[in-house]
């Protein structure tokens, strides 16, 4: 009970953190109809700097890390990504009035990973003094790509079956086989993963410490606050779109992140006991799982499952999923981590 009260207090106080207060501020601005905008080129640059910094920092520290320790968490990341999509498929199949492809597209996005939630989690854990292995952000692609690939494969297979039954439908012919490598490549080519991997490579192979310290680290929190503002504004302004589709998507986006985070938390807990994965790492892994891809996942899904309606998955992800991942799941799993591992 004490723990619960403690959690509630801590949870609310989090809303005063720069991260969450900017998120909320953005949503309120949009709700009020403000004309304030963060210009798109600035936003793109902000995301680039954040991910490059996370990557470089990770790369620099992986140099000294025991790579074997990374193996189990990486495997668990893949497992989590796949589980989330399968779970989503099962759930949406049971809900009335949901087209199969819309459900799979949404589950794919929620299995994938959000760069902005990751950045927010890193800062909020640092603020609370929760340490984690610097390579944890490098788990991102291990969860992101399998989830996207699986969702596209399942949706395509489903369509082929439907067409087989229905006779050759009119419309664009469905590809006979999904080109997995094309999806993987498309994911890696997206701006978010590209920036993260570029940063990792630079950190691992070059000596970017001087520029990390003089530029990328000092501006990190400031630019994150800008990103949070954008996320808040977008969340509000996409609500209308979400309202136009079945409410199940909103519900899934509300509950999904917590469930997905719990799955990863459980697997992380195993890794903690098996290979000494740090408590902070477990929390971060849970947040990565709870997050959903808001930047580069959607175009991959759009290209891979073009017959799904983007309003369903983008609305669910941007308007509900991301705010829930950041504002609810980060403090939640941080508190859970303290509860489970002590702190």
């Amino acid at each position: 009970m004490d723990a619960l009260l403690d959690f509630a207090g801590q949870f609310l106080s989090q809303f005063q953190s720069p991260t969450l207060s900017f998120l909320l501020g953005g949503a309120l601005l949009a709700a009020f109809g403000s004309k304030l905008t963060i210009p798109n080129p600035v936003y793109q640059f902000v995301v680039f700097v954040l991910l490059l910094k996370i990557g470089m920092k990770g790369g620099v520290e992986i140099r000294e890390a025991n790579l074997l320790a990374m193996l189990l968490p990486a495997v668990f990341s893949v497992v989590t990504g796949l589980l989330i999509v399968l779970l989503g498929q099962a759930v949406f199949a049971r809900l009335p009035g949901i087209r199969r492809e819309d459900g799979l597209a949404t589950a794919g996005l929620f299995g994938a990973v959000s760069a902005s939630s990751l950045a927010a989690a890193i800062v909020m854990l640092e603020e609370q003094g929760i340490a984690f292995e610097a390579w944890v952000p490098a788990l991102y692609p291990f969860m992101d790509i399998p989830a996207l690939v699986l969702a596209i494969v399942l949706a395509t297979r489903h369509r082929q079956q439907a067409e087989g039954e229905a006779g050759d439908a009119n419309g664009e012919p469905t590809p006979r086989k999904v080109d997995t490598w094309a999806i993987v490549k498309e994911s890696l080519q997206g701006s978010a993963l590209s920036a993260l991997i570029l940063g990792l490579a630079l950190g691992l192979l070059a000596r970017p410490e001087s520029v990390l310290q003089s530029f990328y680290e000092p501006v990190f929190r400031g630019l994150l606050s800008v990103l949070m503002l954008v996320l808040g504004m977008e969340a509000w302004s996409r609500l209308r779109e979400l309202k136009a589709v079945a409410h199940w998507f909103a519900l899934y986006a509300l509950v999904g992140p917590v469930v997905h985070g719990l799955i990863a938390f459980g697997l992380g807990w195993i890794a903690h006991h098996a290979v000494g994965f740090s408590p902070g790492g477990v929390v971060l892994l849970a947040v990565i799982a709870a997050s959903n891809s808001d930047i580069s996942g959607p175009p991959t899904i759009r290209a891979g499952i073009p017959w799904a309606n983007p309003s369903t998955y983008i609305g669910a992800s941007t308007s509900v999923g991301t705010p829930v991942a950041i504002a609810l799941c980060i403090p939640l799993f941080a508190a859970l981590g303290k509860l489970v591992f002590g702190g």
Partner: protein
Amino acid sequence: MLYPATKVTLIAEHFLVERVCALIEACGGHGYTLTPVGGKGLHHLHATSDRATLVEGFDHQQVEVITTDRAKAERIAERALKELFTNHSGVVYLESIEVCRRERF
């Protein structure tokens, strides 16, 4: 100095544009002009690209091809509709224009 020609305009989501251009070249188009646009259609409101768009690649681009060969213009429109726009938002239309320097189109 002025020769009749046809301009085909295709409005497509950003991530489709590469395929639209490839199709134009496959149909024998000699060039094209790209303009970033926003708008509203059947689907939803598409922001112009000047404010932060969280979700990459969903803004629209307008692709215009000019050709002096009406049949080629119709072929581009037809194939684009069949091969690219069945599942994607977008608009295709033709205009009659008069071009200078016919040999370029």
